[in-house]
Structure formats: C-alpha cells, structure tokens
C-alpha cells in the first residue's frame, strides 16, 4: 500500500472513531452542538479526502450523510434517536467502503443493497419536513456567511511532477467544496521543444473559485503538496489583489491573460508597470504575515495531542530493540572483562568509561522502549461501541466508565490484551449486570455500571474491570467444577481459588448460552493470553454486589532489570521489580528451620521455595545460602538460593518450544561470560506455590 493511501486510511480511521464517539454520546442523550459539529466535520473530511483519491463510491455515500447532517446543523432538521442509530449503521458502511477501495475490491451485492437502503433512509429524513425548531427563523451562522469569489493562482516548484500528485484531484476536491467558475491553464511559461525540460512543471493555473470558506481552508486543500506548489490566494473583490499577484508572479503576460479570460478588468491592475519598491515590500510583508497567521491558525486547529509527530512502522522499532538487546549483551561482556581483569581497579578510567557506557545504553534502551508505549485509552475507547451495542441488544442499561486512559503500555501488550478485555466486558454485561427490572427488585438503581480502569503500580500496569452486577455464585461454580471433575469434592478451596475456577475450560455456570458468552470457552483463553504476556489475573466478587477482575501486566516484554543468583551449577535471574529483600541464611538458622517449608521473617510466616529441590540442582558450590524474598501483587515467597551475584540488566530470550512447559522459568539470557542464565517467572512460581489442593 503506498504511503498516501496509508495516510488516507489512518485519517479516515480517526475521523470515523471520533464520529462514533460523538454518536454514542448522542445515543445516551447528550445531544449538543459540539457533537453535531464534530460529526459533520468528520463526514465532510472523509468525503473530501475520498474525493482527492477519486473514490467516487465513498464520495457519493458520504455526500448524502453530509447533506443530512448539514441540515441538522443548520436547524432545518431535528435529530432523533432513530437517526443516530441510522448514522451508526452508516458509519459501519463507510468503513466497508473504505476497506473495499483500499483493497481494490468491490462490495458484494448484499453490501451494495445495504448501502442503497441506508441512502434511501437518509434521503427520507432530508426530504420529510421534521419538527422545525422555531428559533430556526434566525439564520444560522452558515447562512449568514455568503458565497465568496476567490482567485487562486497556482504555480509549481521544480519537483512537483515527481510527487505523482495529480492536479486533477485538487480540482475535484475544490469542486466538492464549492464551485470552480473559471479554470485557466497558464501555458506561456512552457518553452518550445528545443528548450523544454520535460520534467519541469512550467504549466500553471489561474482559478476563480466560489465558496463560503476561508482562505486557510483553501490553502489546506493543497496541504499534501504544500512544499511543491506556489500558491497565491485572494478574494476577487480585494482592492489590490490582482496588482499584488502581478508583483509576485512577475510574468509580463499575466495581466493581459487575466483580463482577456475575464478574471479582472484593466482597472484592477495598477497603471505603473515598473514595480515600486514600496509596494513590493508591502506585498512581501503581507505575504509573510499571511504565512504566520496561517501557521498560527494551523497549530490552533490541531486540537489533537499531536503537535509534531511521526508515523513510524512498528517493525522498525522492533528491529531497533533487537539490536539494542544485542548491544546490551555485548556491553555486559565488556563490563565483565573490565571488572575481572582489573580487580584492584588500577585502571579506574577504564572502569568509569565502562560504567558510563552502561548508563548511556540504559537511557537509550529506555528511550526506545518508550517509543513503543501507547496510551491504553485509544484502545479502551474502541470498546465503547461494543459495550453500547451489546448492552442495548440484550436490554440492559449500562454506564460504562473508563479511567486512566493516559496510562501507557507497550504497543504489543495493548494489542494482545484487547481481545481478553472485550471478552470480560461482555461477561460483565451479559452475566454480571442484571436486567433493569431485576436490579430494581433488589433495591439497586436500574442502571448498572461497568468500570474499566488502568493505572501503574510498582513496576506493573494494573487493569481492572469492575461491575456492580450480581456477583459470582461460589456454590454454583464449585458444584460445576466438581461435576466436571476439575476439583475433588473433598478439597477445601478459598474463595479466591473458587473464583479462579472459572478459568478452567468448559466451566460456565451461565444458565443460558447466548451468542455473546456462556459456552465456557473463553476464560481459559483469556487467562492464557494474559499469562503469555507475563501477567496475572485475579478475581474478587461479592454475591449480589458485583465482581472485580484485576489484571497485572509487566511494562515491557523484552528487556528486564534482574538480579543474578546461583543455585548449584546454574545461574538464575530474578526480575528486580519482584524483589522485596535478600537475607542470608546462616547455618544456625538453617538448623532451626529443619525441614520446614516456612521461615519466620520478623514474626511473619513466609512460604519457602527450595529452588534446588524444585529444579533438581546440585549441591551448593560455595556452601552459602541466601533467601531472596520476592513478591507479586500481595503475595510473597522466599526463594532459597545459594550465592547472590548482583544486579544484572538482561535481555529475555525465549528458550523455545521445547521448554514451554517448564513452569516457573520464563526465558533465558546470555551472560557476558557466555553462560546461559535462566529467568524466573515469579508470578507463576508464586501461583504454583499457592495452588494448594488443586489437581495440577
């Protein structure tokens, strides 16, 4: 897909999204001028852009919508809820149209029929006199703005032809905005064949354009070729407009040409042919001022969070991150060589340089990681439509609140968390929130509420989905799990463990299987997706009150800061973000501990994980024993290891499919010495340790 088409796609995406948001606001009763204006602008922009590319099908369809919305904007037609629903359907159809043209395909007969039907419905609204507001008698702002005649003089800079942009698309766009009354090509600058440089754009155009727009709106039309075009725009009625044009263009044939074609009369031009110094200076000042004004207008218009930004192919970032990883490894080697060869630190300059390097690399690494961070809000906002449609479909009244949208997460993580979140939102809507009558009967407000929150918390990002619905029924879940053979009838499970059962495949206590959820296939996939992202998921619930699902995700996927330890002959890495503290296990303490799986940490009982036992390591080389206390969320565990070797910045490399089932290990890393260190998957380890009584 070429670059222009990509920009077109992304722009339309943005427009459609803001259109959808405004429409949903309206559907929920908030009908105001801002929303109406926003929708009109979105449709107008899409139509215009499509016009530039010659996508007639899109232009035609959006044209009707634009007309209707313009009528609404002017107060000639009153908007109703049915219209809003119709518009949401139209938005969907526009999406299909855009997809079709971008993939160079046609719509199938069914989709075409839908389009025709929608157009008919739109036209019906335009033509049927609706309840006309009485205030409509006062002409709206648009009606007061009269049609103006603009003179547009176009010349091209030397590279214009190489841009591949067709001037026709500009003409088409202008005609979709207003009307080009005169279009006169300027050919006197074209030399004969002997002198012609075929690639150079000698040709120019003089246009008389009628519209109720502003000068900057006309200049925006040329935005795509801004650097390659030389534009002079002024109102035809402007006193010295043509005079100035003559000064700027410095083409001796221009005056007679413009007069003969009918743009202006002789009187419009000043009699003096030699350029007066003053007026030239004046023209330049006017030009500069116009440029400044234009720039101010432009930056004021950019209400989006982007002031100067780039669209970057995310593959490029991934490549950078890969190289960054290799650099980190290479640097570790240098560092370890420096430190081992120079134990007395004789060559302190070398040491300092090496450490400086490490610090700089960390900055760069963090900077690159940061590029991949996107705000979760962009993704979350897309859920509004789904929540809206789903709840309306099954007759539930739901207030959907999103908070913490500015929280940032790695782009890949955001993409992969999207489906699980949608699934859980659907569950909340379908099984969580009750029907309005039910809610009223239990003394709740008929409108239910679903919250989607995101916030950072000690090296992780937390995402919560909370509803004030009917909560989870422990008894039912347990009963179902027992009858499915997942749990032995006699085992005792905590509340939390019972709730966790809903992640087992095949388990759904929904009485009815709707096409939204209830099949029991879903939550297990959700859990797997989240675990694949090295995240965890927890459920809390109170029967009759509501349910809260808490997901924790690591900030990044590729590089972590870790702590190196040794157990037996193997080195392990523990992610720094999970370490609470390290304590030495003296022989005395060890003997009092005996075979216990717990230690007494300042009065608290801490479960102990003997790494050597679990992972089958040999005896300690150095006879030293340490306990690294790690935590995830609210749970802590002590890892019994041998030596502590210090902080280590590391790149996670996957161990490959063969080692997929190695619980508790999330990957490997190549140390500076060339050895491989295994990386502990702390969340998993903690979970394994706490899964008491389950048939694992």
């Amino acid at each position, binding site marked *: 897909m070429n670059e222009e088409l990509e920009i077109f796609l992304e722009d339309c995406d943005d427009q459609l999204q803001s259109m959808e948001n405004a429409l949903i606001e309206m559907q929920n009763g908030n009908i105001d001028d801002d929303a109406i204006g926003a929708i009109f602008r979105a449709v107008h922009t899409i139509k215009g852009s499509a016009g530039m590319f010659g996508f007639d099908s899109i232009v035609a369809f959006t044209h009707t919508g634009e007309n209707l919305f313009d009528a609404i904007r002017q107060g000639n037609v009153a908007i109703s809820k049915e219209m809003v629903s119709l518009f949401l359907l139209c938005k969907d159809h526009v999406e299909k149209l855009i997809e079709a043209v971008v993939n160079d395909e046609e719509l199938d007969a069914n989709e075409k029929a839908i389009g025709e039907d929608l157009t008919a419905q739109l036209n019906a609204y335009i033509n049927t006199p609706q309840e006309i507001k009485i205030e409509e008698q006062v002409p709206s702002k648009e009606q007061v703005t009269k049609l103006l005649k603009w003179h547009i003089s176009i010349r091209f800079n030397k590279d214009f032809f190489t841009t591949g942009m067709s001037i026709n698309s500009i003409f088409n766009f202008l005609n979709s905005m207003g009307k080009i009354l005169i279009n006169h090509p300027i*050919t006197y600058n074209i*030399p004969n*064949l002997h002198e*012609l440089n075929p*690639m150079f*754009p000698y040709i120019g155009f003089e246009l008389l354009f009628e519209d109720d727009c502003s000068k900057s709106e006309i200049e925006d039309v040329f935005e795509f070729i801004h650097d390659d075009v030389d534009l002079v725009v002024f109102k035809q009625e402007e006193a010295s407009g043509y005079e100035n044009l003559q000064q700027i263009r410095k083409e001796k044939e221009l005056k007679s040409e413009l007069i003969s074609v009918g743009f202006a009369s002789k009187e419009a031009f000043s009699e003096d042919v030699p350029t007066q110094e003053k007026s030239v200076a004046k023209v330049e000042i006017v030009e500069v001022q116009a440029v400044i004004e234009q720039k101010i207008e432009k930056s004021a218009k950019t209400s989006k969070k982007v002031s100067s930004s780039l669209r970057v192919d995310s593959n490029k970032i991934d490549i950078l991150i890969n190289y960054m990883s290799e650099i980190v490894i290479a640097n570790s080697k240098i560092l370890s060589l420096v430190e081992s060869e120079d134990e007395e630190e004789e060559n302190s300059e070398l040491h300092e340089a090496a450490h400086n390097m490490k610090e700089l690399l960390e900055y760069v690494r963090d900077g690159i990681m940061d590029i991949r961070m996107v705000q979760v809000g962009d993704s979350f906002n897309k859920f509004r439509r789904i929540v809206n449609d789903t709840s309306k479909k099954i007759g539930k009244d739901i207030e959907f609140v999103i908070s913490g949208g500015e929280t940032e997460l790695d782009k890949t993580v955001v993409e992969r968390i999207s489906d699980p979140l949608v699934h859980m939102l659907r569950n909340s809507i379908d099984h969580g929130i009750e029907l309005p009558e039910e809610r009223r009967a239990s003394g709740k407000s008929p409108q239910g509420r679903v919250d989607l929150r995101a916030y950072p918390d000690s090296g992780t990002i937390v995402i919560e989905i909370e509803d004030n619905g009917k909560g989870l029924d422990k008894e039912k879940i347990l009963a179902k799990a027992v009858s499915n053979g997942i749990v032995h009838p006699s085992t005792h499970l905590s509340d939390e463990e019972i709730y966790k059962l809903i992640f087992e495949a095949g388990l759904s206590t929904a009485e009815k299987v709707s096409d939204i959820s209830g099949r029991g296939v879903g939550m297990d996939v959700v859990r797997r997706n989240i675990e694949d992202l090295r995240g965890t998921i927890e459920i809390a619930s109170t029967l009759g009150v509501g349910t809260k699902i808490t997901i924790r995700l690591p900030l990044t996927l590729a590089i972590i800061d870790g702590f190196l330890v040794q157990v037996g002959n193997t080195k392990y890495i523990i992610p720094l973000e999970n370490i609470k503290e390290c304590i030495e296990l003296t022989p005395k303490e060890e003997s009092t501990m005996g075979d216990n799986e717990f230690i007494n940490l300042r009065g608290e009982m801490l479960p102990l994980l003997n790494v050597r036992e679990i992972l089958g390591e040999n005896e300690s080389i150095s006879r030293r024993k340490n306990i690294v206390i790690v935590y995830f969320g609210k749970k802590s565990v002590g890892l019994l290891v041998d030596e502590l070797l210090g902080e280590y910045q590391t790149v996670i490399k996957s161990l490959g499919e063969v080692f997929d089932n190695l619980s508790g290990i999330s990957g490997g890393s190549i140390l500076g010495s060339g050895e491989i260190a295994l990386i502990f998957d702390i969340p998993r380890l903690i979970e394994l340790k706490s899964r008491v009584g389950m048939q694992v």
Partner: protein
Amino acid sequence: MVLESFKSITIYEVEKLKDLLLEALSEVESLELDMTSITKIDMVGIQLLISLMKTAKEEKKTITFINITEHVLRAIDETHCKTTLGLDA
C-alpha cells in the same frame, strides 16, 4: 507519424518522446500524430504536447492529432487544455 510504440504519454515516456517529436517535426511541414495506441496521458504529457504545438507555431508548421481515444480526451479536458491543443471539435 504513428506513435504505435507508445501506450502512454506520461512522465515515463516524455524524455524519449520529446526527441522523437523533434526529429519528426524537423522533417515535415505538417505533422499528423496518430494517437490510436495512446491510452493514458498525464500532466507531464499534456505539457509536452503543448510545447510541441508552440514549437510548430514558431516554425510555422502545423500539428494535427488524430484518433484520440475518449479516455485521453477526457483527461485533457479535465486539465482544461483542450483549447490549447486545438482539440475543440
């Protein structure tokens, strides 16, 4: 002159075509261009043809275009250069 080896008159062909046209024009008083095979034309091409017209006028020669396809004619019309190229039939 038949332009049969050309399917389009666009930015890709103009350099070659310019030389051919100059050569052809130098040999005759009246040049007839058979546009049967031309299915595509862009602004660069139109500019070339305008230059050709000018050259002919300066040298007091004539240019006639024949067998222009509907599509090409429309493209020329959209850039408002029909009159310049003497195609107002």
